[in-house]
């Protein structure tokens, strides 16, 4: 009975926790500029994420190791520095983008400039990390995030053509702005398959003491939760395509994106958009700061755990404190949050092979996963997509940055 409750809670919180600054901005831009044409990218990225999340949970449940701990043990600390440094750098950038997103959400409600909210939100993130255990962070924020289902309702009410939706799940090339299309595809991949999610999930599996016998809980939660979560992201794209696209509004700011809910929710639209953005970004900020502490502590063999009394894991607590401060400082520089998000996401894809390829090697090592090794087809597919995404990102990021 307890396992079933765990599965239901896991699925519900995965749905609620799926949407954050990256998925909202990439889906909103993709919908406004290319209609439904980039739905396939969300589909592919969601399947990739579900497979990788299931694998990271499996590794943790069977080996009692998180990804970072296992990489350190298997490949040594001299190898570990590269993925660790890359992960920490991207975590800091993403944290700054999420804090910016949460601050913009408050700005949408109050009209007061977003930079004023960065510090209070950063402090609130730190407070949650200090005071709350893993379950409160995962379930509490995930349940609050269910407000993002308003996008699904909006998409349903707008009655998109099922035929067009299904057709968009097959990749096609656009008739205009091919580079922009590629950049958005890469950013959608980065927004969905964030490397921090993998280690965060495996750390959560260890924190919740999931065992090899409960692997079905892991797979059910991962596949159903992530796939339903992907539906929310698709709903953002569909809503944007049906509301902003026909008006020729391109999404260059969150104020523009917020307009997508107006035809369905009228006077509640801005509040719902702001709550979805704010809660999603706040939850992601907490998770990213926590993951940085997980990654660093596990790589260096320190005591770690969000459920441990803070004095027992003082170095772990210091890391999330320092990363939160770093994220706040980057956000306070005042970069345009939307642009910072898009560039961070594309860079996420660039570093993805460094994080994902060692993880795939672990999933074929029976010393870690016993008989539960991954099949060669799935591994090759994931490795190929990861490398392809990285090469594509290396090509289109300079274009987007220097080509404006």
């Amino acid at each position: 009975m307890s396992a079933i409750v765990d599965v239901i809670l896991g699925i519900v919180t995965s749905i609620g926790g799926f949407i954050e600054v990256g998925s909202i901005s990439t889906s909103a831009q993709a919908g406004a500029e290319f209609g439904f044409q980039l739905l396939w990218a969300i589909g592919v990225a969601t399947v990739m994420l579900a497979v990788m999340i299931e694998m990271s949970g499996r590794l943790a449940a069977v080996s009692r190791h998180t990804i970072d701990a296992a990489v350190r043990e298997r490949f040594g600390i001299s190898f570990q520095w590269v993925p660790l440094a890359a992960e920490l750098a991207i975590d800091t950038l993403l944290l700054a983008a999420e804090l910016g997103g949460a601050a913009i959400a408050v700005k949408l409600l109050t009209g007061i400039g977003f930079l004023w909210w960065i510090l209070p939100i950063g402090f609130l993130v730190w407070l949650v990390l200090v005071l709350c255990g893993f379950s409160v962070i995962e379930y509490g924020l995930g349940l609050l995030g269910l407000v993002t289902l308003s996008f699904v309702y909006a998409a349903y009410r707008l009655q998109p053509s099922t035929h067009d939706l299904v057709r968009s799940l097959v990749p096609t090339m656009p008739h205009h702005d091919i580079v922009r299309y590629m950049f958005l595809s890469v950013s959608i991949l980065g927004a969905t398959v964030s490397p921090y999610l993998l280690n965060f999930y495996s750390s959560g599996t260890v924190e919740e003491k999931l065992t090899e016998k409960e692997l079905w809980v892991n797979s059910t939660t991962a596949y159903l939760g992530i796939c339903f979560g992907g539906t929310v992201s698709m709903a953002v794209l569909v809503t944007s395509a049906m509301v902003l696209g026909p008006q020729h509004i391109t999404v260059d700011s969150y104020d523009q994106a917020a307009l997508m809910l107006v035809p369905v929710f009228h006077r509640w639209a801005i509040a719902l958009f702001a709550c979805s953005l704010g809660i999603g970004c706040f939850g992601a900020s907490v998770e990213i700061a926590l993951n940085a502490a997980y990654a660093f502590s596990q790589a260096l063999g320190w005591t770690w755990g969000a459920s441990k009394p803070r004095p027992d894991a003082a170095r772990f607590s210091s890391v999330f404190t320092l990363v939160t401060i770093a994220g706040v400082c980057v956000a306070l520089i005042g970069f345009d949050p939307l642009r910072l998000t898009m560039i961070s996401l594309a860079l996420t894809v660039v570093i993805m092979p460094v994080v994902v390829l060692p993880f795939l090697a672990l999933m074929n090592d029976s010393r870690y996963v016993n008989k539960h090794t991954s099949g060669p087809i799935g591994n090759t597919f994931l490795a190929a997509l990861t490398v392809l995404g990285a090469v594509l990102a290396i090509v289109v990021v300079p274009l987007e940055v220097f080509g404006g």
Partner: protein
Amino acid sequence: METRYSAAGAIALLTLTAALAGCGSPASQLDEIQKKIDGLTATTRAIGESWLRGDVSPTFAKTAFLQTLRLLDDQRTSLTESPQLLLDPRGAALSRRAEQLSRVLAALVDAARQRDDGAAREHLSRIRAGETSP
């Protein structure tokens, strides 16, 4: 070793090609700016009409108009930074259009600040009448 060099070379070549392509011709830059200004005109209209219908608050309308004004300013800067673009008749027309839209946006910010629906309606009608259209 040779294979590694050729892979690295291919990536470097692709990046260079991409960066060079990113510079873009004046015509493509003007297309891009025109698309952005069209989008910002549509945004102004959508925010204004939502406010007049009571779907969004004057507070939101004011901050959204201000943000749109900032985005428009970026486009005007792109135009003024390149004399070559301004010499092009299409570039000059776009510059005038951006300036007109800026003035409408400034007036709308003021109307939202004073919660003056009547003034907002009048300023929006200038967009509808095509005063800021090419």
